[in-house]
């Protein structure tokens, strides 16, 4: 039997067991059993993904499962990387989840969550394996519903959860409508609904239909991926979900949007005109900068991470868009390089974002805090969690020796080499895209210095932060697994070379990008660039050791003495004097004042006797999401206005309602009689 098929079968079986285990009455047994089954689901999925990456193909038709069409599943080289990363993240997060849940059995550890989590994990694994429109849409919707249930886990405790749930439900279902319309039109035009039929029929479709299909599906996928301006649900839903679910959503579900764009745009439609890809790059660039700016303004740790997900999605979309642009100009090598960079960034983002969300969850569990302003001093109380967060942050800031640097380097290389494509458009778009990536990388450095430095360093700024304790071993084990993945991706990214080559080949580009064992290399007709992360790390380690040894050469007795903080002679400062996340971001907020438009209020209450003596000054600041205000609020206001106006039609009179029914019937009959 095919290894992919048997591994996916095992995953499905384990997920079923996990869902059943989640129904058990005893809390402890339920948590452990469901967690182990979910971890097994992830491991089996990862095994299937690795087999697919190694070149195994698998397909299955189950005629009786879905009415009329049957269930078509297939795994190929493009599904491989998505299956593998989702599988590994699921396994690590499930392990982490066995320790994360609270003993009380409420909220995150309620029975519903533990039942749905394995099913959500399974849909994450099956969406990239769907091979027909009906199967894809069904699994996509199951995934959305399962994640919605999980987001709503804490709805009894916080009203923000309910609001986030409504936003998410509406956005994801609007996306589903677009996806349904686009794929249905595609299937109707191609004369069949399996992906094989679509591939064969795509070439015969008129240009307008192809473009309509691409635009409809891409808008739906980009909304799932959190691209600006369809991102509004993401910074609400991801922070409000339980942290291990946030990790799954940010590190696995969001990437399926990218998968959808690559699958439909390149594999099924076989590429398209230039404006598709320019629009995609535009959306990517907007997401990259706007997402990171929102993250820079956020002081809620999980919201910050969610906004950074938008940014990373933007980088991947830039890569995919550049690939389409190069393919349109018949530069297949360049297209392969750009697409491989986007996929590599997807893998890297999975590893570090899952780790960061898990670490944020540990902090939330230990302190009950998500607000960076009130944290601080956690590195002394939760040293392992702080260290693991630092590993994730190093990946996210795109600096060596982190894993994010490798993929951003490859993306920048593809843009630099892309200037070989002639035309004014490339000579303007590519430098701008380059600058956008560089700006978002610079902002990312500020954002993660803030998250790590303000959240974990210095001294605690609240009693809850002062009373934090290290997480239980299961949670640490899950995070260590993810940290090991980050380190492996940072040191030997070349191991992914063959898998990426296969994925890119499915998208229709035969020349793979060159990633080899010790480093990565972009080699294109005479132009080359090389990066050897292993050597960089070795050189940095040696140089740090030498620099640390320098004082010892001069002075034999380097015993450190402890002394009070000097603080310019001001004496030991209190924790209230330390910089908070809000104050750290203030200069950036001023620089980008026109873009983020913060709202500030100062209330001055004078003493009753005199207007000149101040009793209290209250300062309030909010940084609202400006796109949400400008784009969504008017639409929502218009809708509720229409709703209010329509109430006049329903005044409670039964006669009137019967009249409506009569008019409706007559209209339908007339329409039929006229023959329309």
């Amino acid at each position, binding site marked *: 039997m095919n290894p992919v098929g048997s591994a996916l079968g095992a995953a499905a079986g384990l997920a079923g067991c996990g869902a059943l285990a989640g129904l058990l009455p005893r809390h402890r047994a339920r948590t452990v059993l469901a967690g182990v089954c979910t971890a097994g689901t992830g491991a089996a999925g990862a095994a299937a993904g690795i087999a697919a990456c190694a070149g195994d193909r698998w397909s299955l038709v189950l005629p009786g499962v879905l009415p009329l069409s049957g269930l078509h599943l297939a795994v190929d080289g493009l599904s491989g990387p998505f299956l593998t990363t989702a599988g590994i993240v699921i396994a690590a997060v499930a392990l982490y989840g066995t320790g994360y849940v609270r003993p009380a059995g409420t909220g995150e550890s309620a029975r519903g969550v533990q039942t749905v989590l394995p099913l959500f994990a399974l849909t994450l694994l099956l969406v990239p394996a769907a091979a027909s429109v009906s199967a894809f849409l069904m699994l996509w919707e199951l995934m959305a519903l399962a994640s919605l249930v999980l987001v709503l886990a804490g709805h009894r405790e916080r009203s923000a959860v309910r609001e986030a749930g409504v936003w998410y439900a509406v956005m994801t279902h609007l996306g589903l409508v677009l996806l349904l319309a686009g794929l249905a039109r595609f299937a109707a035009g191609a004369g069949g609904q399996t992906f094989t039929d679509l591939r064969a029929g795509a070439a015969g479709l008129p240009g307008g239909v192809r473009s309509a299909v691409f635009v409809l599906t891409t808008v739906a996928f980009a909304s799932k991926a959190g691209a600006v301006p369809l991102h509004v649900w993401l910074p609400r839903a991801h922070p409000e979900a339980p942290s291990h679910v946030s990790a799954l959503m940010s590190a696995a579900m969001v990437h399926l949007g990218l998968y959808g764009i690559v699958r439909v745009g390149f594999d099924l439609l076989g590429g398209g005109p230039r404006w598709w890809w320019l629009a995609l790059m535009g959306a990517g660039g907007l997401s990259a900068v706007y997402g990171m700016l929102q993250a820079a303004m956020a002081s809620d740790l999980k919201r910050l991470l969610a906004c950074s997900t938008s940014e990373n999605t933007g980088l991947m979309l830039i890569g995919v868009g550049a690939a389409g642009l190069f393919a349109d100009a018949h530069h297949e090598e360049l297209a392969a390089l750009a697409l491989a960079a986007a996929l590599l960034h997807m893998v890297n983002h999975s590893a570090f974002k899952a780790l960061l969300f898990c670490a944020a969850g540990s902090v939330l569990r230990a302190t009950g805090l998500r607000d960076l302003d009130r944290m601080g001093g956690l590195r002394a109380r939760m040293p392992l969690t702080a260290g693991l967060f630092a590993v994730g942050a190093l990946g996210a800031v795109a600096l060596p020796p982190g894993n994010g640097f490798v993929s951003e380097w490859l993306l920048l290389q593809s843009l630099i080499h892309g200037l070989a494509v002639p035309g004014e458009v490339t000579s303007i778009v590519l430098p701008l895209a*380059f600058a956008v990536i560089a700006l978002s990388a610079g902002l990312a450095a500020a954002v993660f210095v803030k998250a790590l430095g303000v959240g974990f360093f210095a001294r605690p700024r609240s009693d809850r932060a002062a009373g934090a304790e290290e997480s239980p071993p299961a949670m640490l084990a899950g995070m260590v697994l993810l940290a090991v993945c980050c380190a492996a991706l940072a040191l030997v990214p070349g191991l992914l070379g063959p898998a990426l080559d296969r994925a890119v080949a499915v998208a229709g580009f035969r020349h793979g990008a060159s990633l080899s064992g010790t480093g990565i290399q972009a080699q294109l007709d005479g132009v080359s660039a090389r990066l050897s992360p292993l050597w960089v790390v070795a050189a940095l380690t040696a140089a*740090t050791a030498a620099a640390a040894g320098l004082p010892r050469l001069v002075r034999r007795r380097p015993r450190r003495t402890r002394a009070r903080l000097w603080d310019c002679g001001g004496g030991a400062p209190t924790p209230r004097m330390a*910089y908070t996340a809000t104050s750290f971001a203030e200069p950036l907020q001023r620089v980008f004042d026109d873009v983020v438009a913060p709202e500030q209020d100062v209330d001055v209450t004078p003493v009753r006797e005199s207007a000149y003596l101040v009793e209290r000054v209250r300062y309030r600041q909010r940084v609202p999401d400006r796109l949400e205000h400008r784009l969504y609020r008017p639409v929502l206001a218009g809708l509720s206005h229409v709703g209010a106006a329509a109430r006049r039609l329903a005044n409670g009179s039964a006669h009137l309602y019967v009249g409506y029914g009569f008019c409706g019937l007559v209209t339908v009959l007339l329409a039929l009689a006229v023959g329309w």
Partner: protein
Amino acid sequence: MSGPGIAAVAAQVAVVTAGAPLLAGLMRQVRARLEGRAGAGIAQPWRDLRKLLRKEPITPVGTGPAFRAAPALLVATTAVTAALVPFLSTDTPVGRNADVILVVALLALGTVALALAGLDSGTAFGGMGASREMTIAALVEPTILLAVFALSIPARSTNLPAIVAGAVEQPARLASPAGLLATAALAVAVLAETGRLPVDNPATHLELTMVHEAMVLEYAGPDLALVELGAQMRLTVLLGLLTSVFAPWGIATGPSWAALAVALAVFVAKTALLGAALAAGEVFWAKLRLFRVPELLAGSFLLALLAVTASYFLSGE
């Protein structure tokens, strides 16, 4: 792997490490003379370093591992950069990995390490310095990378030895509009990155105007020595990068001992000259308000963007 190549790498690291305090001393001396002061002499930073290194290492209460590791990491990132950039020879064993994006990222890693150390101290000044430094760094990064992009177009590679070797062979590239615009953009970015006037004042004594100095206020003794050495090395590396890329004459392109010796002398002379010119310029500049700095960097960014498009349209036919 050639003898002169290995020697070139070793010599680059050694000359940057040993020469950085001297360059700082030279710049201070030039400034002092122009302002009508006698100055402390070129070797004063060396004497300061020696004094600091002999002092007792101090750990302020409440600081953690990030605070202790940052000085060594700052020096290490700069030393690795010094090994990668072709100051003396383009034919070195590390040349194939000397990617310019990697060089920029390594320098940024040093900035990040120091900013984390500033936050780790938990003082208001440390946080203030870190916040300002990261704001400037976030805006410098696109500028410097775009200038790098402009540089890499004629060589069709981001490999620094390839860029420098190409410029040595075809000096006309340097005088092209694209080359000049990229030089201007990179020069502004270097000023911001090294914390010189008009972005930051390295000699300030007023805490509220400090950027770099505010972050490192809590350091003392050997740690302070490493921080100072790291900052001086960064200045040397970035000035050296400017000279190597825009005035590449004298850099050895083959495995020859004689060329290496010439390259060493020329590199020292070029960097000293550029440093002296920068110090002379600083006498006439005032520090910009912090919130005017983005305008300066935006101007530099525009120059770099113009350089990229110019190099495309001028070489496009």
